[in-house]
């Protein structure tokens, strides 16, 4: 039986335009479905419109900050909870505690090596989006 990997739905929440777009481009090239939100409010709206598998969340955002976004995501029904990964320039011990309190699953400090990000998502993909069986025509089968 043939299996094809299901793409992860990734929401990139990042106010720095170049970082947001280049991260999205990178993840698309690795086969993920990517949406970008440039502020906290847009992130919450995007997650409500379509639940992502993974949220890559900058913390220093205009308006609603990343910790507030994480809390809003954690208030969603259990089945629609994404993996929330903070990817932030905020890297102090207090920042990490705030992330844990807000329901962030993993706190990464910028700059994150692209290969590390891609590898992490590959493992998430194996866990969250197992391969789906492609249409089986039955050719070559013996009954």
């Amino acid at each position: 039986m043939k299996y094809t990997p299901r793409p992860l739905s990734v929401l990139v929440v990042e106010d720095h335009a170049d970082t947001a777009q280049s991260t999205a481009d990178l993840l698309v090239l690795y086969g993920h479905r990517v949406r970008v939100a440039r502020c906290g409010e847009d992130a919450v709206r995007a997650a409500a419109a379509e639940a992502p598998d993974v949220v890559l969340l900058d913390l220093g955002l205009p308006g609603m900050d990343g910790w507030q976004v994480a809390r809003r995501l954690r208030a969603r029904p259990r089945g629609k909870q994404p993996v929330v990964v903070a990817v932030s320039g905020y890297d102090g011990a207090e920042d990490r505690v705030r992330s844990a309190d807000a329901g962030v699953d993993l706190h990464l400090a910028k700059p994150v090596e692209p290969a590390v990000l891609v590898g992490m998502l590959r493992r998430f993909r194996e866990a969250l989006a197992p391969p789906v069986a492609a249409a089986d025509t039955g050719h070559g089968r013996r009954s």
Partner: protein
Amino acid sequence: VKTPRRLPAPEAPPVADAPVRAEHVRDHVTALANALHLIRLTAGNDQWVLAALDLADRQLAALMILATAVPDPFQEPDTHRVGGAGVADGWREEGKG
């Protein structure tokens, strides 16, 4: 053949006389690392490579501006700002920067 969706909008340059914030530097380094990875990933596709080079150029330009304002304990305090006295008064030309 995949093509870049669009060139990202240019980032605003660092604000003159603003203190350098680590998060600004980290954002630009992140985008620069992404650009280099995109170049490796799309080698042979001119459109992608040129877009990624353009992205890398912008990050490097921003980092060069920020680099002039990184605090240096051996310099005067008022030189630790983008566009501050450290550049204008020729510290670097005198070999002190």
